[in-house]
Every structure is written in structure tokens, then in C-alpha cells.
């Protein structure tokens, strides 16, 4: 499937309750070694309870400038969480369903080179 099919999908708990929308997919370059870059695996999905889109990632990084935009973005995406791929039970058209007892994890990105 393609990424844009997943972005904006409803994020649902096992009982069907909507908890937000998938705004991004977390990847990790840590799979099988290859000639150039190791295989890149999906490790989770980021869910925002209040918005279907997240473009600048202020809520996932320590960026604080420009202050007004940073505050607005953090406010807009307050409550965002990461759900590990292990806790994803089903991906269907327009919806992603989590397993019962799934864990809401911190969405912050680990420090890395500025990109």
C-alpha cells in the first residue's frame, strides 16, 4: 500500500471507539543490511486526537521557534501519541484498528541531525 492511503485514516480502538487520526508513520532504518541503506521498517503510527494532518512536526521535536507557530502546532496536536506496530491489529481503507490493551507511547523523536 502507499503511505497516503494510511495518512488521515481513522484510528480506532478494538471496540470501535475513534481516538484520532493517523498523521504519520514512524520508520526505523534498522532492518537487514543492504548495499546502501539498511532495510527501513515501520515501527508505529502517530495518532493525533484533534487533527488529520501534521506537517511541521513541532509536537514531535524540541523545536520552539518561531514561538507562535510552535505553540500553535503543539496546541493543535496536544495529546498526540505513538502506537507501536505490534499494537496494530488491522489496517483497512480509511481506518486503522489497535489491539485491546494497546499502549499509548511518547511521540517524541529521538535527537538526530537537523533535517
Amino acid at each position, binding site marked *: 500500500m*502507499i503511505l497516503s492511503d494510511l495518512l488521515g485514516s481513522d484510528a480506532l480502538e478494538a471496540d470501535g471507539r475513534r481516538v484520532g487520526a493517523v498523521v504519520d508513520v514512524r*520508520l526505523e532504518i534498522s532492518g537487514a543490511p543492504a548495499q546502501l541503506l*539498511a532495510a*527501513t521498517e515501520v*515501527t508505529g503510527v502517530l495518532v493525533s486526537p484533534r487533527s488529520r494532518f501534521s*506537517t511541521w512536526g513541532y509536537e514531535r521535536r524540541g523545536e520552539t521557534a518561531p514561538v507562535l507557530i510552535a505553540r500553535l502546532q503543539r496546541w493543535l496536536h496536544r495529546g498526540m501519541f505513538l502506537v507501536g506496530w505490534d499494537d496494530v491489529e488491522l489496517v483497512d481503507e480509511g481506518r486503522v484498528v489497535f489491539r485491546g490493551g494497546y499502549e499509548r507511547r511518547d511521540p517524541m*523523536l529521538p535527537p538526530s541531525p537537523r533535517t
Partner: protein
Amino acid sequence: MNDETVQRMPQPDPRAPRGRVLDAHLHLLDRQVLDRDGTPVTTVDDVELDGIELGARIEPGSPAPTVAAILTGPQLPMRIFGGHAPARRRVAIPWKLVASVGTTVRLGVGADSLDASWVERWVSGHIIGRIPGGRHDPE
């Protein structure tokens, strides 16, 4: 190693990242793709993920999906206005050709070897090349 030493050693977090962590939308979409010589090739319009079957229950412990390719082509209007470009209109650059991801996505191959640059090659050969002086550098 005695019991006391074992207790003092921090337990590794099994969920700690084992490599570079990226967010697909944030770090990949709309980034410029450069070939191994730094020549612009295209931009990342979408990303193809392998290992996700729509509507099928994912068994616990199943292998994680992987990034298969960067997609380019007429994807941008679809993201703005919705809908899908037909799969045949998408041009895929296999992820195994990607050398690094930073402000730009760098490939490990030359642009001439990619389908993504065929439009530029065609325009260069059929249009620019027919203009007098169009086949050599300015003097």
C-alpha cells in the same frame, strides 16, 4: 560476574531504536531526491510500503512492514485534491537505491539510470537538442 554486578547493570530497553528514526511524512514526503552526483532527480511524492494487507488481521509477532520504494509522478495533485493516480502512472525508485536521508534524499546511482528522469531525457534529446546550439555548453 557476581549477582551484585548483574543488578547494577542497566537493563537495555527492548524498544529502544536500533537505527535512525524517521517519520515518513515529516522526513520523506516532498523532499528533493538527488542522484549520486548531486543532480536533482525528482521529489518524494509518496512512499510504497510492503507488508500491509488491507483488511487482513495482523497476527502478533508478524514481521513489520518495510519501505519498498519512493514514488513520484502525478501524485501531488492527488494529495491536494484527493483520489489516486493509476498505479501505471507512478514511477517507483526502489528504496534499496537510497543512500542517505537528510534535508534531501540522496541516491547511490546516477539519474540517467532511473525511469524517474525519462521526461527530462526526452525533452533534452527531442526538443532542446533540436535548437541550434542546444547540444553543447554555452561558449
